[in-house]
């Protein structure tokens, strides 16, 4: 109990530090664990081992419950492409570095695998904070992370093959496919019945979720696979909507608890890397931070993202994952890698997780975007004048264009970065330019300073602020959702259109007019 209390205390303090320093809590959990073991207050290690084990199981289980391809919306194919390529290229590079510095074959494989994956926990937190989950590049990044989690689990299964003979690796491949198929059958048939049709109370729902988790770990164990492979596919069985939503609130307390003490107890078991491995660690850190954005940039740009979106995605993915630690632990526990290499993996993970929030910022993204040769805008023959400039053309603006007469449409120039949308608009005779509307070079090329009116429907408020300031003598309308954003736009001389108020008025009309009838109809159904 005292050990647990100490682990929790360390986690709670790490959380305070994470909030003050504005970095992810995971590296700080690990650091607080290291400090705890240096201070020597942790009395006995068997309890730490137990929390480590339970934490590991829950961490992987929860990752499995998130594995729902529907979350990536239309970005699934791109996600797979980017995810697999980034994983493979980084994996090979780090494997080669490890081999060059004299690491044996199997440990180098583990290292390559550990360095290749990016962290779901860190990235999702940043995306949520910046409200970018639902932007195309946000969905892409989410998809990439899901793909990489899956790849990591597959490799863990293969690496656990006995003696690394060809037959045993193939056999493990068959077993892991079997467990994946079993999970998929569960997900389609049994799970919806138990979780939805039986109408269980919250306590029983939690119990059943845990039973699914443990049953799958048993199956994995029986097939000779690592138990966490079972935990992952147990989670996958619970991933589809609405089952995932129903159990998520029940599981989130458990995962908050176990995951926090997992990272702290992991920290307590680590040791400092020796001189020889410190250079290996530094090499890996440089590889992850410098090469990930470049690799992702090339793949994502070709897959149709803007330069800026591709850079943003690349910077966000430039860290190693909590799964890297899982891979390290599994390797260590099965005797494939030594304590030193586990420490290398932990060190790389801690450092890159700390650097991510400082690198994945608008400022860095812009600086990088400017370094990139200017490719995307079609060169205009003549800079237009007295036109109406639309920045961003989502589905609502496409609908707006259908409401306008042709004479007005002729005066409009749309800047957007979705080639599909632009093609449709061109067919209707609307002038278009492909590029990032928040880029001043693009704005200049589109004659923004000579426009009659500029309307921005970009959702990033920082961009809108810059645009309004840049076009300070022009008439600029910005669509905003929040009152305080409207105030900011007004302050810099723009005209805000507050969509939340317009929508609220419409909703209030509906409540007055149509709701009473719907309500009484539904009440009758209920009875």
């Amino acid at each position, binding site marked *: 109990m005292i050990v647990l209390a100490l682990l929790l205390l360390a986690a709670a303090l790490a959380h305070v530090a994470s909030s003050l320093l504005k970095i992810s809590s995971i590296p700080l959990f690990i650091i607080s664990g290291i400090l705890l073991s240096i201070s020597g207050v942790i009395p006995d290690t068997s309890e730490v081992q*137990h929390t480590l084990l339970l934490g590991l199981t829950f961490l992987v289980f929860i990752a499995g419950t998130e594995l729902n391809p529907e979350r990536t919306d239309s970005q699934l194919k791109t996600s797979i492409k980017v995810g697999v390529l980034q994983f493979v290229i980084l994996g090979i590079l780090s494997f080669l570095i490890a081999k060059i510095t004299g690491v044996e074959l199997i440990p180098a494989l583990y290292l390559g695998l550990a360095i290749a994956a990016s962290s779901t926990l860190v990235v999702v937190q940043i995306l949520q904070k910046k*409200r970018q989950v639902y932007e195309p590049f946000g969905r892409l990044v989410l998809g990439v992370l899901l793909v990489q989690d899956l790849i990591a689990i597959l490799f863990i299964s293969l690496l656990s093959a006995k003696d690394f003979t060809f037959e045993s690796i193939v056999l493990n491949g068959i077993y892991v496919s079997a467990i994946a198929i079993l999970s998929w059958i569960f997900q389609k048939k049994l799970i919806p019945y138990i979780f939805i049709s039986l109408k269980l109370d919250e306590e029983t729902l939690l119990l059943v979720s845990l039973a699914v988790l443990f*049953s799958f770990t048993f199956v994995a*164990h029986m097939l000779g696979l690592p138990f966490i492979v079972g935990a992952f596919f147990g989670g996958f069985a619970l991933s589809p909507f609405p089952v995932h939503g129903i159990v998520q609130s029940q599981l989130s*307390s*458990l995962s908050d608890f176990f995951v926090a003490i997992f990272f702290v107890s992991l920290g307590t078991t680590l040791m400092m890397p020796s001189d020889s491995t410190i250079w290996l660690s530094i090499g890996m850190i440089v590889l992850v931070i410098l090469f990930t954005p470049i690799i992702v940039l090339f793949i994502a740009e070709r897959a149709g993202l803007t330069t800026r979106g591709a850079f943003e995605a690349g910077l966000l993915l430039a860290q190693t994952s909590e799964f890297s630690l899982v891979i390290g632990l599994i390797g260590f526990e099965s005797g494939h890698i030594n304590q030193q290499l586990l420490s290398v993996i932990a060190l790389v993970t801690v450092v890159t997780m700390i650097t991510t929030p400082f690198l994945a910022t608008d400022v860095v993204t812009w600086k990088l975007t400017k370094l990139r040769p200017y490719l995307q805008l079609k060169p205009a023959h003549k800079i237009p004048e007295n036109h109406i400039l639309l920045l961003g053309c989502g589905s609502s603006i496409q*609908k707006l264009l259908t409401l306008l007469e042709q004479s007005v449409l002729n005066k409009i120039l749309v800047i957007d970065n979705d080639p599909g949308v632009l093609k449709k608009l061109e067919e209707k005779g609307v002038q278009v330019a492909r590029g990032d509307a928040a880029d001043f070079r693009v704005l200049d090329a589109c004659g923004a300073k000579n426009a009659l009116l500029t309307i921005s429907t970009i959702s990033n408020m920082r961009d809108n602020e810059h645009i309004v300031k840049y076009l300070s003598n022009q008439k600029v309308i910005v669509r905003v*959702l929040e009152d305080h954003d409207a105030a900011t736009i007004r302050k810099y001389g723009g005209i805000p259109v507050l969509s939340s108020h317009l929508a609220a008025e419409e909703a209030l009309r509906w409540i007055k007019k149509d*709701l009473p009838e719907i309500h009484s109809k539904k009440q009758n159904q*209920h009875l």
Partner: protein
Amino acid sequence: MFELTLIQSLGTMIVVSTGIVLLLRNAYIPNLVSYIITGLILIPLTNVLSQFLPGEFTGQDLTQLEIIKTISEIGIALLLFLVGLELSLEKIKDVGKVALVAGIGQVIFTAAGGFVLSYALGFTTIESIFLAVSLTFSSTVVVVKLLDQKRELNTLYGRIAVGIFLVQDLVVILFLTILTGLDSNSSFEFTEVFFSMGSAFLGMGLLLITALASSRYLLPPAFNWASHKSSEMLFLWALCWCFAFVILAEVMNLSLEIGAFLAGLSLAQLPCSEDLHRRMRPLVNFFIAIFFISLGAQMEFESAKEHFNSSMILSLFVLIGNPFIFIWIIAKMGYGPRTAFLTSVTVAQISEFSFIFAALGLSTGLIDKSILSVIALIGVLTIAVSSYMILYNHWLYEALKKTGIFSLLPEPKRIREEKEPIKIEKHIIIIGINSLGRKLISNLHASGEKVLAIDTDQRKLMGLPCKTMIGNVSYLSVLEEAHYDSAKLVISTLQIEDVNLLLAYRCGQINTPVAIHAFDSSVIEDLHSLGVDYLITTKEMSIYSLKEQIILAEEGA
């Protein structure tokens, strides 16, 4: 490789108990009874199964593991922490007198009655003493778990019951101090026992003062800060606070229950306490399930055969005699028959402490194994039956009322009885307080609608004209507390896809009209397929205003 015994034992416990819960749920068997049944069959079952499973693993391992014991203890601590969170000091003070009188009165009467009865059934004096003490204490864990499940901790009878258990807990501590005094050295010294009793009371006082002082000065700023930062931080802080008190209590020779309860109590008056309570509950449910299962696995009835009839009689004494003593004391103190009945039903079982106590007796050689088995049998029977009695207590009350039995109770001058809670209905629930939410709230409130605003951040709720509630609507319990089933409309202005979809699904299940913020075109399709009644399409609503601006600019040119 990892020491996988823990995963195996936990897994076996969870999987088997899930099977039993699902199997027995049509018989309306409370989950905790299913857990105990799981415990009873677990060891024989795993011994059979282990022949087919890989690894050397027998049923005996399940309960022998030190970590399983720790998990059970954590479960008890968290459960009592949960109880503390639900009740504030004010609410406890209110029932202090009745709890003290009824608690002590019941201990005396039951112990005396139990002793006489056991002696009459032919047990020796020492055996009768052990049986009487074991029958006296009721199980805090069982009752509190059920009351929390029924969401009735905060009713008048729930508060009295909790008060009584605290009093009993203190008496238990006294007993244990005396017993360890008896156990440690043969020469029984009164001064030593007196000293340790004194230190227990001193420790209790110290803990109480710490809890009170921190709840006043330290906790409000600290936890309010944490609750703005992240709900995860708040959660971890609360857990830390709980375990700090548990350890403090252990240092002072108090029970971990008391430590955890006081830790919860000191957080109860904070605005975030309800939210914490909800987040804590799944954790408690997990740990406490392990506690009940391992409790069941420790039971052994082999040697109870010879005393089977006596066991039945003693069980009946606990199931009927105990409540009877209680109902009389509580009614005498001025509570109405309803409250008196509901409270007294909660004491109709014996406690897990009874086993510990009997096991201590066995180890000192004062009693033999058959008495331990008798107590185990009484324990399983009374816990199972009283769980039913507590779960269906309102129904039981109405049934007994018709017989006119309650007119026999003493009638004091002033009767305290709780009113039935009033159900809110035809209100509009607004989830997520942003510009859209605020605009809707102010207009709806002004037009005379009953509005309830829910957000996870208490700062966003400040200054709103309507009723407010802190909570995360991913938890079904939040929606239930908001009475979403009787609402006229549920509106979500949130920009979180997962939460909105789940909300739409849940409202669809119970036919409550629902309006959801469709903040992006990519979410519209899914919301439509869930049958949302109205989509608040903020982006689309802006295009008419933008169209006007464009035409205006064009005409101006």
